[in-house]
């Protein structure tokens, strides 16, 4: 039952140690190029032809594309589990990213699976209303290799 109310739970109701496998995505060449045009205009990420002769021997996904997709999968997951719950509690903003590592290239057709674990909660109360939840997030490719990891601090509303 721990998956329920992910979005709308109070700070006090989110347990340290909770672990979720929350989404997967297969990256296409087209979407990789579209992302790179705006956010990483480097031939390795942008130009499939040129990339064959470059350091990875083919097109790879821009690193922040993997993070952007993490966010999309998280929002989709929150929406599913928040269905029918609307009691005024709000999800909060991100505060900081820590120790973000991109470990292996992601190529067209690769499928990433995203996981997170709640690792700590801060006792500080921010603007009389919010607490801070820290989660550890990882993405694995279809071979089971870790391709990305980071921690993120996010505000969660306190039940005061």
């Amino acid at each position: 039952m721990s998956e329920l109310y992910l979005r709308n739970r109070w700070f006090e109701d989110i347990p340290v140690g909770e672990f979720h496998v929350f989404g997967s995505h297969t990256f296409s060449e087209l979407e990789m190029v579209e992302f790179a045009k705006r956010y990483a205009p480097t031939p390795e990420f942008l130009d499939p032809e040129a990339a064959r002769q470059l350091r990875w021997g083919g097109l790879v996904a821009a690193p922040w594309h993997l993070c952007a997709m993490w966010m999309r999968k998280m929002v989709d997951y929150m929406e599913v589990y928040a269905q029918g719950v609307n009691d005024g509690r709000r999800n909060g903003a991100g505060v900081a990213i820590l120790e973000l590592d991109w470990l292996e290239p992601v190529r067209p057709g690769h499928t990433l699976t995203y996981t997170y674990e709640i690792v700590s909660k801060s006792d500080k109360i921010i603007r009389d209303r919010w607490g801070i939840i820290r989660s550890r997030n990882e993405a694995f490719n279809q071979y089971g290799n870790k391709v990305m990891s980071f921690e993120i601090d996010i505000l969660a509303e306190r039940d005061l």
Partner: protein
Amino acid sequence: MPMAVADDTAPCRFFRVGSPWVMPKIRTSHSSAIALDEQSIIDFAQSFDPQPYHLDRNAADASIFGGLCASGWQVGALASRLTGEALMSAGIPYITTTQVNQLRWLRPTFVDDQLIAHIVFDEPTPGSPVPDCDSLDVSVTLKDSNDQAIAEMTCRVAVATDATI
């Protein structure tokens, strides 16, 4: 006019391989400005972060942020793009970012904010997870056109070992 995100006109740089670059004496640089217009904020949000305060003006006005603002991930991605641009304008062949030790969002990025990366960098160290690259640690302050900080980032980037711009 600063370049807009949605122009799709970001320059794509190829480097000359086989002629090593020289570390500049001055270890600071900055990027040009990039404008975040409403459409590019909404486009990114529809693809990657479809929450009300990144999609809809009215919902955003009533939110924790107080106005339509960019996804923090769009800001992070632009911080890296502008960091690369600032390094290249200092003569350093930036390939990609491999680590972000910390990224702290200091305030929301609102419609029509102009982002500029101001960077300070160290000596390169040999080796990188990226083939044929060395590593460079960079401190980045992302500022608006009034010189107010929007985000701070410390990161490690891959720079081509044997190439010039």
